[in-house]
């Protein structure tokens, strides 16, 4: 049964008054000296009053202290203590207060819990944000690094393109020189062909002359051979004549001997035989002279024949040499023809190469432009990434601030104890 405090006080007061009355009424019957009767009744009234007062105040004070201590704890941030009042037989306004404070505490707990949760989440988000921004920043730095590399690459590319251009100009010059040289070679080869042809013609003409002379020399040699043959026939005739002369000589000798044997009659015949012998002797002498002459002529003829043979051999060698020369000239002509056609091919090819080189030069120029554009683009990218980096730094700073703020919020909220600590 709910009894308000004021009623409780009234009841207490009434109990004290009633007890004083009752004691006053009961005192005469208690054989207490009269002088002490007043004192006793007062004392009893005081005792009753003190007891009731003590009981009441103790009950009140206990609840109030509990409330106060809980209030203090709340003010300290401890929201874990729930107010448990002693369940009296007669609850009063303190119970209401305790209920209200418990409500407040619950509301605060929920609030602080929410705040803490949110602060946690914020801190987490801030950290995420911070790490994300750091990652972004790192990425941005990497991008910047990469862009730098690209930039450097673009510079190298530009240098390479420049170098390529220079080299290619050299190459184009070389190709031009090659083309000029090839034309000269073709011209020289043409001249060589002409020269070799005229040389070949000359060699052919001299070959013809040599052939004619050779044929003449051969026929002369043959004539000389025939002549020597005739000489040999003469020698044979002379031998015959010689033999006849010797026979005549012998006949003359024997005729002389026979005539001598005939004595006086043979004397005339001896003279004839002597004349015949003389004729035979002079015939022999003449024949010997002819033989000597023929021998001389034959020796000379042999010499002429052998020198003719040498001349023929040398002319044969000369003919072969001229033949080889002619052959060499024709080979030179062929080779020069080949050289000329090759040189012409080279000239044509180099002309194609020149046009290709021009195309390549144009391509290199385009590459140069593209490289320049790339460089500009990478410059822009670099600037953008720098801006991005700056923004990211700002973002990171904000995230840091947010983190700090959520941290301090947590710190603030941490004062509130939500759960009873064991």
């Amino acid at each position: 049964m709910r009894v308000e405090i004021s009623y409780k006080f009234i009841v207490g007061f009434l109990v004290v008054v009633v007890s004083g009355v009752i004691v006053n009424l009961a005192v005469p019957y208690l054989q207490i000296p009269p002088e002490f009767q007043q004192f006793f009744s007062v004392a009893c009234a005081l005792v009753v009053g003190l007891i009731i007062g003590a009981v009441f105040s103790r009950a009140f004070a206990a609840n109030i202290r509990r409330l106060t201590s809980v209030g203090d704890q709340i003010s300290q941030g401890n929201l874990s203590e729930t107010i448990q009042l002693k369940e009296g037989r007669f609850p009063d306004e303190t119970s209401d207060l305790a209920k209200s404070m418990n409500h407040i505490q619950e509301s605060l707990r929920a609030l602080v819990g929410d705040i803490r949760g949110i602060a946690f989440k914020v801190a987490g988000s801030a950290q995420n944000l911070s790490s994300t921004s750091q990652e972004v920043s790192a990425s941005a730095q990497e991008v910047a690094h990469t862009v730098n590399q690209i930039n450097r690459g673009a510079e190298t590319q530009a240098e390479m393109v420049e170098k390529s251009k220079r080299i290619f100009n050299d190459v184009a010059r070389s190709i031009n020189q090659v083309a000029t040289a090839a034309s000269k070679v073709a011209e020289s080869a043409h001249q060589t062909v002409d020269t070799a042809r005229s040389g070949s013609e000359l060699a052919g003409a001299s070959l013809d002359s040599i052939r004619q002379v050779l044929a003449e020399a051969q026929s002369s040699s043959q004539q000389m051979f025939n002549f020597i043959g005739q000489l040999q026939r003469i020698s044979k005739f002379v031998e015959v004549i010689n033999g006849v002369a010797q026979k005549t000589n012998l006949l003359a000798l024997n005729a002389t001997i026979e005539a001598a044997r005939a004595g006086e009659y043979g004397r005339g015949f001896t003279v004839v035989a002597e004349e015949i012998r003389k004729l035979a002797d002079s015939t022999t002498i003449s024949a010997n002279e002819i033989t000597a002459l023929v021998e001389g002529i034959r020796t000379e003829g042999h010499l002429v024949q052998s020198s003719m043979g040498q001349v023929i051999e040398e002319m044969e060698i000369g003919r072969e040499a001229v033949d080889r020369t002619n052959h060499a000239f024709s080979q030179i002509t062929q080779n020069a023809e080949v050289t000329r056609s090759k040189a012409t091919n080279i000239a044509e090819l180099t002309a194609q190469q020149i046009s290709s080189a021009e195309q390549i030069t144009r391509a290199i120029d385009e590459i140069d432009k593209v490289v320049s554009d790339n460089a500009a683009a990478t410059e822009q990218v670099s600037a953008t990434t720098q801006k991005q980096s700056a923004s990211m730094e700002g973002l990171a700073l904000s995230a840091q601030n947010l983190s700090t703020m959520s941290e301090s919020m947590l710190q603030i909220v941490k004062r509130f104890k939500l759960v009873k600590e064991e």
Partner: protein
Amino acid sequence: MTLTLLFTLGEDIYGLEISAIQEIVEDPPLYYVPRAEGALVGAINFHSQVLAVIDLSALLGFPGEKRDHRWVVLTPQFKSLVLTVGSIHRIVNLDLSELQSSPSSAGVKVVRGVANLDEMTINLLDTNEVIELLNNQSI
């Protein structure tokens, strides 16, 4: 005047009276006589007669192997011997009255004497002595 055949033996000119000569033959087929010695060269067939061939140079001890292809056939009075000489020259007329004795002919009997003709010195052979020499050498 005597007709004399002149020929050489070695380096010298010799003469032989043609009264001792039967004929001069040229290159007749020569038959070699087995185991012939000294100056005997061989034998020839002369008009169906077999005649001994004597190398006069070898017989008289002249050096040199020169031998004329014409050989001298002596008359039957001189055993029909055939003589080979160095080289037969010709037949000349010699005046035998002007014959001089050879300075070295004291021991050499085969040379009858020396005659001069056209600045030639001719040693005239003694045919009988030659035959004698052959006989002495018992060929």
